[in-house]
């Protein structure tokens, strides 16, 4: 028994899944509400609808998140590096960033829908307006945290500005960038879920709310399961990227 427990704890993913499934069963049997179907029922439904309808919704959501994150990452890093490196840019841009950062951008979805129409664009733009600030602030802080001495010692080797970015600044901010990305994934999924409740018939957010309206709780939970699995895989993907590009922090 002791050995089994140890083995279970060693496999962190399995351990996590097991605890959550047990808690799910407790809620299912404890509350006896139709709103919480049992895990096995949900899983069976999930496996059944995944190849058809569900994967299409999942794919649309994944596409929206990926586009939004890639754009935020590129634009946010550039702005973050710029205000981190230039005193003038810092004075000009930072005050604006600090006011905009905590604003509830999600409330602007109606405005975005008026400006960008009813398609994918307002949903992607909404995620960008939320995620980009986390990237900007993380990258800017990353630049500020590079020790002055490290700058001096690399500069004294006679490298030019481009090489300074390549060998010193970008690797130094990478871990911060990845941490920001990890936080952003969770935020993007929640924001997307909200945005997909409007003006679309595709996406996992739409699928969940649509199942709810149809009072099909099993299907609704399949959708939640799909969204959770998507989030988990994106999270793991970032772990893998981090291990690959930030080998020195492991």
């Amino acid at each position, binding site marked *: 028994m002791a050995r089994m427990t140890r083995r279970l704890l060693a496999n962190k993913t399995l351990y996590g899944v097991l605890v959550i499934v047990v808690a799910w069963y407790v809620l299912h049997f404890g509350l006896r509400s139709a709103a919480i179907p049992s895990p096995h029922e949900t899983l069976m439904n999930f496996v059944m609808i995944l190849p058809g309808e569900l994967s299409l919704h999942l794919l649309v959501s994944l596409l929206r998140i990926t586009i939004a994150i890639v754009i935020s990452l590129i634009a946010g890093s550039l702005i973050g590096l710029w205000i981190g490196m230039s005193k003038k840019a810092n004075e000009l841009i930072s005050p604006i960033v600090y006011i905009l950062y905590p604003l509830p951008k999600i409330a602007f979805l109606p405005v975005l829908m008026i400006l960008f129409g009813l398609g994918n664009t307002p949903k992607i733009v909404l995620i960008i307006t939320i995620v980009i600030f986390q990237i900007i602030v993380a990258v800017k802080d990353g630049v500020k945290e590079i020790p002055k001495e490290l700058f001096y010692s690399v500069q004294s080797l*006679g490298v030019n500005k481009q090489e300074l970015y390549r060998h010193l600044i970008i690797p130094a901010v990478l871990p911060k960038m990845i941490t920001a990305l990890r936080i952003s994934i969770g935020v993007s999924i929640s924001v997307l879920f909200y945005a997909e409740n409007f003006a679309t018939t595709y996406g996992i957010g739409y699928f969940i709310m649509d199942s709810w309206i149809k009072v099909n709780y099993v299907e609704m939970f399949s959708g939640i399961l799909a969204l959770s699995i998507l989030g988990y895989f994106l999270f793991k993907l970032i772990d893998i990227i981090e291990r690959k590009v930030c080998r*020195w922090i492991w």
Partner: protein
Amino acid sequence: MLNQVSLTLEKHCTYAVIGASGCGKTTLLYTLAGLKQPTSGTITIDGQPLTGIRQSTGLILQDYGLLPWKTVWDNIAFPLKTRGFGKHEIVQKVGAFLKSLGMKNYSNKLPGELSGGQKQRVAIGRTLALEPDLLLMDEASSALDAMTKEHIQNLILSIYKQRLLTLVMVTHNIEEAVFLGQKIIVMQNGNIRHIMDNPQFGLENSRSSLAFYRTCLELRAWLE
């Protein structure tokens, strides 16, 4: 930080700059490195006025010298790459330096996996691979334990003897100054208080002679 310092350094000579914290010794070194510009006056090296970072000046700092994300090999190789050395030449050069510094088996290690002394060896190797004629060091051995400190000091002395470069090192360690400085510059409040000629420099086993400690005492008197 510095107040009207006027200083002429002779070629192929070693200088130890010593003084209490905040006396301006590091500022002096950074100014010589071209990292800080003097508010007035000029610096001339080899007849050329210094306007920025000079290609053949090497700088070694107490810490933070190596890039944590590059292996030992890459840390030494990347400045060579940026200076346009050929691939074959880089492999040869880096290999030779690692071997002479006794770091051959560590070429794939990251700086985080090395001891303080090993890190400093790699930093020294990286700077020497660029073949500087002026080598500047800021507390290069301060972070090391007593034995490793002596090893690094011996290494610096043997490098100087082999290459006859001009060496300026900032230290707050009296024995290090006497061991490595042909001339010892004593600084106080942003000024040069005294420049001491050091007869102990470069002598065989100097650390175990009484005369060495007499010179240390003499220097100590100048610092008080």
